[in-house]
């Protein structure tokens, strides 16, 4: 079953755009019913593997929203790939978690939370994955200063 048709048939009001790139279909959606859409793709279309979950910061690019959470799928049975992009606004950077659907989602969502500051509602254990637990801020956001905010100088000097 074609993923674009399957999502359009059930959630036409959620779809912002569709297309095909390099033989792989992509679907732009609103974030509100993302879990239902992912469930449709998994159960009806057969995209049984979430190969990657990441985010993009489109700061000052005139796009619908600032953040996009990107889901990359692969169907082991049919050998096809597909991509879903859910737009997340800057004012309220939250989206529902896909952890209940895919076993590969929790850590990927932790990484996105760590580096972009997008909260995943319903995540079983949303804590930082890469950075130290006491780190403040989300450094992969485009408005985060490249050399940081002084974190790298924030250590005690050894005194013999």
């Amino acid at each position, binding site marked *: 079953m074609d993923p674009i048709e399957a999502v359009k048939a059930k959630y036409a009001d959620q779809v912002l755009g569709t297309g095909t790139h390099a033989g792989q279909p992509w679907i732009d959606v609103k974030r509100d019913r993302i879990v239902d859409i992912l469930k449709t793709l998994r159960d009806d279309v057969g995209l049984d593997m979430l190969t990657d979950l990441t985010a993009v910061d489109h700061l000052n690019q005139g796009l619908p929203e600032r953040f996009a959470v990107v889901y990359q799928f692969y169907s082991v049975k049919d050998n096809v790939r597909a991509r879903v992009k859910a737009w997340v606004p800057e004012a309220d950077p939250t989206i529902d978690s896909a952890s209940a659907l895919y076993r590969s989602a929790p850590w990927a969502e932790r990484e996105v939370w760590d580096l972009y500051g997008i909260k995943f509602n319903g995540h079983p254990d949303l804590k930082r994955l890469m*950075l130290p637990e006491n780190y403040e801020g989300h450094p992969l956001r485009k408005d985060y200063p490249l050399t*940081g905010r002084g974190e790298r*100088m924030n*250590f005690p*000097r*050894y005194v013999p």
Partner: protein
Amino acid sequence: MGLESMLPDGVLTSRIEALVNWGRKNSLWPMPFGTACCAIELMGTLSSRYDLARFGAEVIRFSPRQADLMIVSGRIALKMMPVLLKIWEQMPEPKWCISMGACASCGGIFDNYAMIQGIDRFIPVDVYIPGCPPRPESVIDAVMEIQKKVERESIKQRA
């Protein structure tokens, strides 16, 4: 001199400081703090082709409590710095530190939020090795510099 003529055969006179430093400099026990590609060059230095054993520094200790020379080889990230500090504090005096390569010495090409711009901001470094990564000859040179430094030091300086 002259004193030996009054002593029985086989007895030599020396300063205790010279004797202790001679012992220290010829049996340095390095602790490798290897985090990146510099550590691979360090392994090359230690193995048969370059053979750091010629300088008495072949006993690599992975416990800081048994070492007296820390070789920081590789980039130190934000998350690694507390570990580095703790390990340096665990090493007993006297101890020396070699900052190996561009990343450990100044951050190298990584000038971003997550990279320490030189470990000498937080722990004392005795010898820096330039290079990215440095060749084994440079590491040997640094060990020899440490040996010279040990030789010159007063044992009162180091507890």
